[in-house]
């Protein structure tokens, strides 16, 4: 069995295979619903309605998509330069930590100053968290997949220690949670009375900025060159090591904004369940988007919709929410395969 490159894939291939992937995902999800003893059509309908069936549902989906856009962008930026950042989770918590440190009364600033300061500090913290593994990679050749992955656990335990100790909310009835942010440190809602907060707007701006950086600046050119062909980049005089470090700073900073936006926009305090794996899901989001920053927004909304829809379906139909994870995994695998099939032809010989 061999793969043959297709020089110019036909439109049929470009649309047909990804569409087939989606159909397969739905079929597989239906089979699971059937297995759980529910009517698959009803289940799918409930997921769809739960994700986008009402204004409330739609805004809930966008709220859920917000951290995924940030972590998806973080992963997309890093992967584009072949820096395998699996540690968006740790960078997210670093950002959340800074938001809490600055936003719970330490600074008596008005919102207009306090929120940018929190966001800036969050980005800096996230950037520094990824800088360590990046330096280890460029200087000593340490595999960043391992270091960034393990850093997630270090960070989570570190946060846990803080929440049981110095950051523990004295009014928290003993729960491991931080004090609440002061009102000035909260991200306002985009429209009064609706739950969607400005973190979503910030995420959209970030996506556009990343797109501009990648396609219009020398830095973006360098990052793409290093990712595509390190040897040629080196030969052309591109400082490969420095580009990887810059990529790490940008990627870590973006992931940290997810933490900032969740704390300041949604939760109002820091707990250990702040992120149900947004950092890891960001990898799925970025891969589904083919690492395209604008695509990340779309795929994040899709992924968030599946989660939110499955949550709501589960309450109504009694099918476990795990179906969402399985469907996303199916979507990712079939989509990756579909995308490969748009570019390669399989020869059985």
């Amino acid at each position: 069995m061999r793969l043959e490159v297709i020089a110019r894939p036909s439109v049929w291939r470009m649309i047909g295979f990804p569409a087939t992937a989606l159909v397969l995902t739905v079929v597989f999800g239906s089979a699971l619903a059937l297995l759980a003893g529910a009517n698959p059509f009803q289940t799918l309908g409930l997921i769809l309605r739960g994700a986008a069936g009402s204004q409330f549902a739609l805004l809930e989906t966008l709220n859920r998509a917000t951290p995924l856009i940030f972590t998806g962008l973080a992963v997309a930026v890093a992967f584009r330069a072949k820096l395998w950042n699996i540690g968006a989770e740790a960078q997210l918590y670093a950002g959340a930590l800074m938001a809490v440190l600055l936003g719970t009364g330490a600074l008596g600033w008005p919102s207009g100053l306090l929120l940018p300061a929190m966001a800036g500090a969050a980005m800096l913290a996230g950037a520094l968290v990824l800088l360590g593994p990046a330096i280890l990679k460029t200087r000593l050749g340490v595999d960043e997949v391992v270091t960034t992955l393990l850093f997630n656990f270090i960070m989570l335990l570190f946060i846990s220690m803080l929440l049981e100790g110095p950051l523990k909310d004295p009014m928290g009835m003993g729960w491991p949670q931080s004090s609440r942010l002061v009102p000035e440190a909260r991200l306002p809602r985009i429209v009064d009375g609706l739950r969607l907060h400005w973190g979503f707007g910030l995420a959209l701006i970030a996506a556009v900025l990343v797109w501009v950086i990648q396609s219009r600046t020398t830095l973006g050119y360098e990052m793409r060159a290093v990712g595509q062909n390190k040897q040629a980049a080196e030969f052309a005089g591109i400082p490969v090591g420095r580009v990887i470090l810059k990529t790490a700073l940008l990627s870590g900073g973006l992931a940290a904004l997810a933490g900032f936006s969740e704390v300041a926009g949604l939760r109002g305090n820091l707990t250990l369940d702040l992120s149900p794996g947004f950092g890891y899901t960001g990898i799925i989001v970025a891969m589904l988007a083919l690492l395209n920053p604008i695509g990340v927004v779309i795929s994040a909304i899709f992924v968030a919709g599946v989660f939110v829809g499955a949550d709501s379906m589960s309450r109504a139909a009694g099918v476990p929410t795990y179906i969402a994870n399985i469907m996303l995994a199916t979507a990712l695998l079939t989509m990756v395969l579909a995308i490969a099939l748009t570019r390669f032809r399989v020869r059985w010989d």
Partner: protein
Amino acid sequence: MTADSTAQGPVLRLDGITKRFGALVANDAVSVSLWPGEVIALLGENGAGKTTLMNILFGHYTADGGSVEVFGQTLPQGNPRAALAAGVGMVHQHFTLADNLSVLENVVLGTQPLWGARLDMAGARAKLVGLAQEFGLAVNPDARLGSLSVGERQRVEILKALYRDARILILDEPTAVLTPQQADALFAALRKMVAQGLSIIFISHKLHEVMAIASRVVVLRHGKLVGEVAVKDTDPRALAEMMVGSAITPPELRAAKPGPALLELRGVMTPDRGTVRGLRGVDLALRAGTITGLAGVSGNGQAALADLIAGLERPSGGEMQVAGVAPANWSVAQALGAGIARIPEDRHKTGTIADFTLTENAILERYNKAPFARRGWLDWRAARDFAQSVIRAYDVRCPGPDTRIRLLSGGNMQKLILGRVMEVGPQIILANQAVRGLDIGAITFVQNQLLAARDRGAAVLLISEDLDEILTLSDQIHVMSEGRLSPAFARGTMNAADLGRWMAGEGFERGSHAA
């Protein structure tokens, strides 16, 4: 089948082989017969379909039409194991050996059952040593492959095929990695095999070798068989014209007007880096208005010298001067700043980024300089205009500047690289294997560009494995061996055999520059 039947019929018959890759017809109804005890040469330019044809014979590809018969039996398509079993052995251009195993283990690999309790190493050793003696292919069966020279590895590769009882041996450009003397030794071994009744297909584009070893020449052009002649009835010039399809005009040479040295090395050393051998005290002067040829078997320090001049490596000893000044912190940026045009050895891996467009590749060395960038912002219009001008001036055949460069042929890729580096009017030109793998049209184009640059006063360093190219173009020639550089030989004072002796390491004063 009896010995009689093999003596009468051809041992191998390729009949009407056709292979298409999309719109490209790589083999168009090609028929070739090979007789016992015969060496035929398969001659053709890169892309003529030689390798495709052999890959079909060996079962790596399935043909769209035609059949392969070995000793009168039709081979099943697309089954390398069947080809091996039928007695076809292939010696690839890039060896398929394991560095961390011994010679014996490499030869045995794959011939014994995977789940056997033990290997019959004693029997294997006896067979291997016997074969080595019989054909004069001396190797130490216990040597680790990683420690062997390229010539020795090639012997192992051939022995591997013989060990599998190959009666038909296919050699794909076997002399590309050898000195002329090593090539002669290889030919002697091949003649012994032929005397034993083996049949050989010899793939090459070097005409004098074809004349030396083959009895019959089969010429392919654009996938079609365009000629089949006995060697005694032809000459290299006629073969070349058959191969190209038109009369060949050698590049026109004007007398060199040597100027001052633009780049000078005195006793320069560089460290070994992995498989790249460093320099051991190299003295070199690249003068304005001349082409300096660098001959040598690959892996003898040419890569280190090229890296040094390209700005990727710094001298660890000795002195380097560029335009009369010893540069501090030598780097790629400095090399580019000093007006050094760099044509890298591997246009796919180091010269271009496959998934970048022609435009993006055209600005690769100057992406952060005006007019392509201002304060970190790229000016794509300027970049595209530059790519367009290179495409026009250097005749890069492509759908347009927005095409990904991976879709271009090697020759067109090389023309883009050439345009990229030549458009700035370089003073020093590093041409490392600049025409390797190109067709004759592209070769002539690149060589004429280098000659034109020399005539307008640039200093050219021409690194090549093709001695004919070196001898034709160079105003002076150096030979590299084990990181050392020979003195300069003026044009016309050396022939290929003389260079071959230097390439084998003869003539160097032992230890004169030892670290």
